[in-house]
């Protein structure tokens, strides 16, 4: 195999990991739907969204960090597999970010903005994340606009580093300086229940871990599929393809 495309073996441990994710998230779903809920006014049962909406943010951050890491590794080593990994991590991160944004809009619409008709609320984190998603989305526009693989990999790696650098400021630092529904801002009542409802806290941690594991599973599938595609391309230029083995 081309050393530029070397991947670890996805053997028994990987399959067991899949079983763990399946069981883990199933248990989380049971606890999330049936478990205790701090039935506060305004939030009511929607407090359960904590288990689904917030882990999407964790996936957004984890994917961006992984994407930036492999972008840096690509610039350092020039190995194609890091470009593939960076792109896959960015894709997972961006999709999770879009899901987090949409779920946040829906959540806020029927709680804090109930009766206002406001779908797009002045929530600062929501607006900043929309900006961040435009920056993240430009990564894929950039990739799509470049034909030569080496140039595409190098330029998008540099851009990925920039896009990751903007993320903590746009989605973390700035929203905390403004009135927000999210935890951490002043006068925010949304999650003070977290300090009381210890049961919710543990389900939330379990959900976060579960969705991060699921994201890693999706990420490895993307990487494997892309690497397989590149290996097929390499075969096509080196030698005629052998007859496919049908099992």
């Amino acid at each position: 195999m081309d050393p530029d495309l070397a991947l670890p073996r996805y053997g028994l441990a990987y399959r067991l990991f899949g079983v763990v994710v399946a069981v883990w998230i199933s248990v989380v779903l049971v606890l999330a739907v049936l478990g205790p809920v701090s039935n506060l006014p305004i939030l009511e049962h929607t407090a359960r969204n904590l288990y689904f909406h917030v882990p999407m943010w964790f996936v957004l951050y984890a994917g961006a960090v992984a994407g930036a890491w492999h972008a840096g590794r690509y610039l350092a080593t020039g190995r194609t597999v890091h470009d593939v990994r960076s792109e896959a991590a960015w894709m997972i991160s961006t999709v999770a970010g879009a899901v987090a944004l949409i779920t946040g809009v829906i959540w806020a619409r029927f709680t804090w903005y109930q009766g206002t008709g406001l779908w797009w609320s002045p929530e600062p984190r929501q607006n900043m994340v929309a900006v961040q998603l435009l920056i993240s989305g430009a990564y894929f526009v950039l990739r799509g606009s470049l034909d030569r693989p080496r140039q595409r990999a190098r330029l998008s790696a540099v851009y990925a580093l920039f896009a990751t650098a903007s993320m903590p400021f746009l989605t973390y630092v700035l929203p905390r300086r403004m009135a927000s529904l999210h935890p951490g801002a002043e006068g925010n009542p949304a999650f003070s229940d977290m300090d009381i409802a210890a049961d919710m806290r543990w389900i939330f941690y379990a959900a976060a871990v579960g969705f991060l594991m699921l994201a890693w599973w999706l990420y490895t599938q993307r990487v494997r599929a892309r690497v397989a595609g590149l290996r097929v391309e390499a075969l096509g230029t080196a030698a005629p393809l052998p007859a496919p083995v049908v099992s």
Partner: protein
Amino acid sequence: MQAADTTVAVLDPSAAQAVAVQPARGVERVMLAQDKLPVVLAVVLVIWAGILILLARADRRLARIERQLDAATPPDAARGA
């Protein structure tokens, strides 16, 4: 009342009244608890099961493609990292 024709009851709502409504028990008692939240859970778990089947199938296909590519790679090519 056990022999009531439930098919008719489904097709014709007015006939449903002919079927005696029994107190919830068994699976119904479970599903009607907690404001019927278990019904939501059942739906969510079925969807999750579908997603898992797709994920597992994708894993299996990827493994097969990787095996075929390993077999097709010329032996003189550099192996490993």
